């Protein structure tokens, strides 16, 4: 504990109580939604600078992503993998474990599911096939976290580096699998296609598959895990104060492994749902790269799996509507990444300012304040 925080702690403790209720709720909302609003505004300015009409652009985003029936269905479908990857990241992050290898875990699970699914779904009842494929995705995702988790838990090796490295290997290995053992009959390197009868059921009259409900259920379960269970509390202790975790007798190496595997399993489940729910096959060069796009959302949701739901919808609108809008505005699809980057930037800024306010400092930059003082 640094001297600074020690000073803070012994400073706050005291005496007379003043009747001030924290506006904690409003604060949380500002911190979560503020960065998105600021990013969209800055995005608008950027659009204006490069000669596009920002209003028309955002209008297109909303129209294609939200107000058009087909767009809304795509948006909702898209929330499924985002929620599941998000749940996986939340599990790890809350335990203070930086699983930044979700792309490798996702893609490797996708490759296995896409490689096995067509044959499996043709030979067993589809419902059983789905369950087996879900477990397959989870097992592959979990397996890919074992090495970083073990190195971290046993030897304290920085998991940011190991998960990123494992992610590169995983992405490459997934492509190899699709080109090799899982290659289908098509001339391009891709797996066989799942028969339409084997795909996840859609809800009546819409193109929204039941995997979305699975994702919502998993989000609620992860929320419950942290809110109510001893297992979740242990992960929270590990994340909040790893030395306290050792002190209170938590088996840290074991918990690290279990947490990492759970994280990887949820990410692998996202891949299974995507393949069997939406894509039906996998090409060797395919990579939706959810991982790093979902990370900022997870933090905006303050590592709360239920609060993640609106952000997943936002992400869905932006990616489905954004794809349409960028095409219409003749911009590269990567413009969405610019917006996500801006969200990250403003998130850090909002955090900085609200920390400053908590310390009772002025929000104005220092130079201005000195000038004011002299005025």
């Amino acid at each position, binding site marked *: 504990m640094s001297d600074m925080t020690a000073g803070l702690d*012994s*400073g706050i*403790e005291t005496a007379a109580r003043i009747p001030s209720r924290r506006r904690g709720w409003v604060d949380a909302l500002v911190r979560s939604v503020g960065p998105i609003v600021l990013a969209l505004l800055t995005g608008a300015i950027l659009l204006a600078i490069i000669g596009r009409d920002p209003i028309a652009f955002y209008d297109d985003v909303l129209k294609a992503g939200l107000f058009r029936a087909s767009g809304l269905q795509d948006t909702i479908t898209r929330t499924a993998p985002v929620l599941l990857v998000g749940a996986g990241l939340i599990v790890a992050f809350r335990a203070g474990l930086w699983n930044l290898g979700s792309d490798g875990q996702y893609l490797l699970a996708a490759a296995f599911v896409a490689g096995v699914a067509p044959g499996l779904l043709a030979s067993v009842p589809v419902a059983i096939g789905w369950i087996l494929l879900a477990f397959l995705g989870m097992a592959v995702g979990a397996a890919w976290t074992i090495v970083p988790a073990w190195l971290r838990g046993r030897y304290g090796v920085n998991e940011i580096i190991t998960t990123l490295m494992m992610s590169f290997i995983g992405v490459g290995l997934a492509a190899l699998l699709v080109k090799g053992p899982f290659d289908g009959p098509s001339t391009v390197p891709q797996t066989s296609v799942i028969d339409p009868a084997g795909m996840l059921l859609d809800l009546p009259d819409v193109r929204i598959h039941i995997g979305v409900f699975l994702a919502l259920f998993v989000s609620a379960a992860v929320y419950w895990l942290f809110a109510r269970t001893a297992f979740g509390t242990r992960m929270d*202790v590990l994340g909040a104060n790893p030395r*306290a975790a*050792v002190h209170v007798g938590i088996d840290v190496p074991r918990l690290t492994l279990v947490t990492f595997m759970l994280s990887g399993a949820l990410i692998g489940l996202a891949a299974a749902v995507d393949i069997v729910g939406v894509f039906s096959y996998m090409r060797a060069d395919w990579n939706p790269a959810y991982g790093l796009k979902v990370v900022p959302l997870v933090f905006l949701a303050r590592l709360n799996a239920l609060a993640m739901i609106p952000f997943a919808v936002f992400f869905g609108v932006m990616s489905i509507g954004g794809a349409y809008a960028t095409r219409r505005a003749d911009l590269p699809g990567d413009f969405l990444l610019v917006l996500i980057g801006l969200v990250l930037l403003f998130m850090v800024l909002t955090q900085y300012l609200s920390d400053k306010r908590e310390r009772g400092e002025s929000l104005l930059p220092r130079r201005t304040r000195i000038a004011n003082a002299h005025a």
Partner: protein
Amino acid sequence: MTLGADRSDVAARRTTPDQLTPTVELIEITKAFPGVIANDHISLVAMPGEVLCLLGENGAGKSTLMSIISGLYQPDSGRIKVGGNEVRIHSPRHGRELGVGMVYQHLSLIPTLTVLENLMMGANPGIVLDQRSARTRLAELASALGVAVDPDVRAGSLALGQQQHIEIIKALWSGSRLLILDEPTSMLTPQGAMELQGVLRGLTARGLAIIFITHKLHEAIAIGDRVAVLKLGRVVGTMGPDELAAAPPQELQERIITMMFGEAHAPDAEVAELREPAVAARAAAVVTAEPLLELVDVSAVGADGQHGIQHVSLTVHGGEVVGVAGIDGNGQRAFAEVIAGQRRQIAGEIRLAGTSIDRTSVSARQRMGLRYVTDDRLGEGVVASWPVSINLVLKRIGQMPYWNRGTVDRSAIETTARELIEEFDIRTPSPQTRIGKLSGGNIQKAIIAREVAFEPKVVVFNKPTHGLDVRTTHAVRERIGEMTRQGVAVVVISSDLDELIDVCDRVAVLDAGRLVGIVENGPGAETRIGELIVGAAAAVPIPA
């Protein structure tokens, strides 16, 4: 109640007239945090050439006030004058530029760098470090302090007292007018503390103003030209040089205690401060024949450059308090952690009530009644951002009745928390308050409550009263006495010799990870232990 209102006597001691301007003057400083007013219209004056001692319980607002002077916090209202000019100290850097030097309780030198490198690092370095002028400056300041300093020795190889001298030099490096020392003697040996007094005297003779924060009344009386007592964010009493000179220390001490706690608490606090031996009280303790904790030839490696322990053997019986003395960093932490199970032993055997626990996990040892009150309260003892209630059951996660088949029962936790808060007199607004917001003393009470509740057999206390105020210290020592009456075996690890003499039956001395002797408490024990410790103090090499 502004200090320095009466200046006539001060003027008599001045050599030059301009020294009459206070170095730093605080006027009606108020600072509130959510839920508390840490500083409530505090006015204080630090005069050049004087030591102002700031006394107060944990949570009296001392740290906040010093953070305001050093520029870390901004006051909500009130004014600060430095050298007669009103200023806004908007950052610690600005504070340093204005001549406010701060020495924190915990030393912050980088052990692998040399003394000179440490000092150059702290001095707002440009791209190129100017070694030659740094050497000159170091020699200059070392002679001002009256100490010998080797610029090229690694900071980590210095004794704590010497490291503190370097910290003081660092604080004075760019020309300080005010030096703030936050509990500077808490890590020092008695000799080191005496030496520090001499250093401070030398500095005030050169016109420096010093603010000296301490818990120890006798120190404040010995060192201070003025004494100010803070309580609940207010200045509740001050003493000027006249008053300090007029009365004998004994009487001053009583007056200060009255200021701090009011009349009612004076006798209590006095007992703790003057350490009336608790030996008599413990005559009633039942020392059973049964050894509850046995260490047989135990060795373990240390962490963070500290000593491990080598071939330590020690037996503690029920109803007995065994002290472990020694200078910090001589294996105390490894000793405590290996008993708690947090650190793996590389040799030897540990038995709890006759049963070997070598392969028993931390939480199983906890369930068996072996408890460890850590000295690193915020670092590992609690999750600071969590409520008091859950911190009180932090070592029982997943256990009945707080977790039922893995699912939390919040009302059970709440009930137990309320009971413990009541029983252990933990001052908290509610069980839901974040524990990090409580004062150090109340955090310690919560940790002790957690360890001592639920039928302990053996309790290891690591520096149980370090940094606590007089009253809490007394309460903690009472608690230790009470446990022995219930037949609990207690180990108290402390670098405070007075404390060990006060509470222990026997005192073992750790030197460089080895147990160099065990002394029965009684007449002359203090000297004997002191000799063993000082023998240790002569050489504290850190093994490779």
